[in-house]
């Protein structure tokens, strides 16, 4: 009955994926920001020391007796050694004339005394950070520009950067993992009310159409509202269907009852055979139509109920006894004896009202088609997997050849002329049996006379 649900995607997975993607992006950004910041810091600190170093060198320049002197301070280079074990190079020029240091050290641009120049270049096959600064001196009334370069390899800086990068990566990863965990928990808790709602709705019995009253988060209010609304309409519609069927039955049956009772009363009063015959015909016609209406309504109700089967544990034996007892007066009218052979309780899962109706139809048929003073036997037995209910009568049996046709709507046995019936009886029995995943078989008693109808219903495991 339940249509396959068209499933696409998962909110939980989408939510987690989205949050994880966000976390990943943030983690990567975090990594690059930290790394970039560290690089900038490392470069700045190296630049600062290079600047201090070159300044210290230039500060010692002096003109003594017309000669330029330069007294490299020990700290100018040792301060560079404090930072790392990097190689240090330097060069000093006076107006483009090489004075001391490494003559092949690249000169970058022309610095002004106010603003030193920094650059990263390659020297002796290694990246070096180089500073080039200038200072003006007056020597013999002439302006001399002294430029000094100090350079340092960047191994230490790169090692520091690598270390920071690793830490940043670990930080990013940690951040990601933490966020992932939180994303999972957040998604779970976000999806929780939905799952609780689904669980509470699916826990309900088929007839429980009350609106959802448990508090739900604001986001779910439209969904729950729609659900409640839908259930309201369903409740109304179901009630209407039931009411309609009941009302229809009432409207049809009450006037029929009036007419029939009058006709019967009249039959008692009239004497002439022709009138009596036509009154009998009239009563038969009324019975015919009332029975047809009854079975149509029954069938509608059965169809309605099989759509939402209300299953409970029932004792098939007790149900059979009850029905035999209930129909006893009807059988008695024709001096038919009904035997109920139910040695032990047989419990199955089923809709009691539907099963009662099915059995009633079977017994009705049996009573109707049995000869006066005949026998009807109802027996309930159980095998390991099945509960079996059998109704045997001593009537004419079912016509050979059209047994399978019998359960079709409005089909009637070809040998039952003269007996009132709509033909829906076996159809109802068949539908009820199918709704309970059971099997209906119709046979004739091979030895004597009479038909045999067997209902095989699955036992609860």
């Amino acid at each position, binding site marked *: 009955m339940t249509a396959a649900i068209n499933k696409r995607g998962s909110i939980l997975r989408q939510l987690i994926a989205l949050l994880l993607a966000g976390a990943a992006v943030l983690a990567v950004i975090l990594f690059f920001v930290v790394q970039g910041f560290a690089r900038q810091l490392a470069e700045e600190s190296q630049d600062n020391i290079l600047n201090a170093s070159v300044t210290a060198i230039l500060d010692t320049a002096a003109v003594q007796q017309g000669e330029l002197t330069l007294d*490299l301070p020990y700290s100018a*280079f040792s301060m560079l*050694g404090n930072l790392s074990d990097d190689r*240090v190079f330097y060069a000093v020029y006076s107006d483009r004339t090489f004075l001391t240091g490494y003559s092949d050290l690249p000169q970058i641009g022309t610095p002004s005394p106010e603003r030193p120049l920094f650059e990263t270049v390659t020297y002796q*096959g290694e990246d070096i950070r180089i500073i080039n600064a200038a200072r003006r001196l007056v020597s013999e009334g002439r302006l001399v520009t002294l430029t000094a370069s100090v350079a340092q390899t960047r191994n230490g800086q790169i090692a520091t950067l690598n270390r920071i990068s690793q830490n940043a990566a670990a930080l990013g990863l940690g951040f990601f993992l933490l966020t992932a965990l939180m994303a999972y928990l957040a998604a779970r808790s976000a999806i929780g009310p939905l799952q609780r709602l689904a669980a509470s709705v699916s826990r309900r019995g088929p007839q429980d159409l009350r609106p959802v009253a448990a508090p739900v988060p604001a986001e779910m209010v439209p969904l729950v509202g729609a659900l409640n609304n839908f259930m309201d309409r369903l409740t109304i519609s179901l009630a209407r269907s039931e009411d309609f069927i009941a009302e229809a039955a009432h409207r049809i049956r009450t006037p029929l009852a009036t007419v029939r009772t009058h006709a019967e009363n009249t039959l008692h009063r009239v004497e002439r055979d022709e009138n009596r015959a036509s009154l009998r015909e009239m009563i038969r016609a009324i019975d015919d139509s009332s029975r047809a209406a009854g079975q149509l309504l029954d069938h509608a109700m059965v169809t309605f109920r099989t759509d939402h089967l209300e299953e409970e544990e029932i004792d098939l034996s007790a149900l059979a006894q009850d029905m035999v007892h209930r129909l006893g007066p009807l059988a008695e009218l024709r001096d038919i004896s009904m035997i109920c052979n139910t040695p032990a309780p047989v419990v199955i899962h089923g809709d009691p009202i539907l099963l009662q109706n099915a059995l009633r139809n079977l017994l009705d048929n049996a009573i109707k088609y049995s000869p006066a003073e005949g026998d009807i036997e109802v027996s309930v037995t159980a095998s390991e997997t099945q509960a079996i209910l059998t109704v045997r009568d001593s009537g004419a049996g079912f016509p050979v050849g059209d047994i399978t046709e019998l359960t079709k709507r409005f089909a009637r046995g070809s040998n039952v002329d003269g007996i009132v019936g709509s033909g829906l009886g076996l159809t109802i029995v068949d539908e009820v049996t199918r709704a309970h995943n059971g099997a209906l078989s119709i046979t004739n008693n091979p030895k004597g006379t009479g038909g045999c109808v067997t209902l095989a219903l699955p036992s609860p495991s």
Partner: protein
Amino acid sequence: MRYLGLALALLITPLSAAGFEVEDHARFGPSDAAQVVRVISTGDIPVFSPAIAKFLELNPDVAVDYTVASSTQLMLALNKEGAEFDVAISSAMDLQTKLANDGRTRRHQSAATETLPAWAKWRDNLFAFTQEPAAIVLSRSAFDGLDMPQTRQDLIAILRQHPERFRGRIGTYDLRASGLGYLFATQDARTSETFWRLTEVMGGLDARLYCCSSQMIDDVASGDLAVAYNVLGSYAKAREDLTRFEVVLPADFTTVMLRTALIPSASEQPELAGQFIDHLLEVAWSETPLESYPFTPINQNRGEADASLRRIRMGPGLLVYLDQFKKRSFLNEWESAILQP
């Protein structure tokens, strides 16, 4: 004697074609060895032969070719002339540092180098295997009746009080000739102004200038010298005639030199060179003193217990006094102090 040794070396050395001065040369190990480690060193052969012997014991198919040169000549050989050596051992830390800074050395990393403390290596290019203090060697006879000075200030005071006793009997490095002497002097100058006062006092007393520690010790032992300043303490303490003189580590501050080994970039068998250096380091840094290690056990000063010991730090700072301007002005100043007319 130095010149004799030099002449001897020139005679017997096949490397005499090289443009640098070789002081001594020796070959250890089998003549048909598959591999030869060529070592250039400022250290005297007898000092290193036990360690080399031990190395050959462990590596029977290897021979060691050992060349002795002054630190300046060693620098010249490796820096300018590109002579092929596999290991360079020198007491001139500044020059060794410059070689490493200028990219003339190879990086070497091994289990042995990992165990060194940070101050004992630089850039994994330079490895220290000794700690050798610069000491003052005093002749006991010359100081007869006087207190042995324990600081530079004490020494200055005594020299000033007894100029006649010490005139012409003070020896120190000729900074122009000895790289080690220059290193000691610059470090002293950097540490304290006392150095310049002492130099002037020594200059005033007609100080004699030497190329090498061993000669100064010889002259103190023979009584020619009363005071030898900035002598390698390890050499002095190793002498058998130790009773004639006293080795004083100045209490105001004692400069400690680290003898270092490196692999020149021109080496064609750096792995073998690495093995040799590792061996040297293992010998040096052994927890128990070994016979093959002729120096004061390096581990003794590991705890930095003595505050007066000033270990020379490896690093770019050492480049400063190698700067030609700086060197020229330093030597000018020194000359004017030590060579007084």
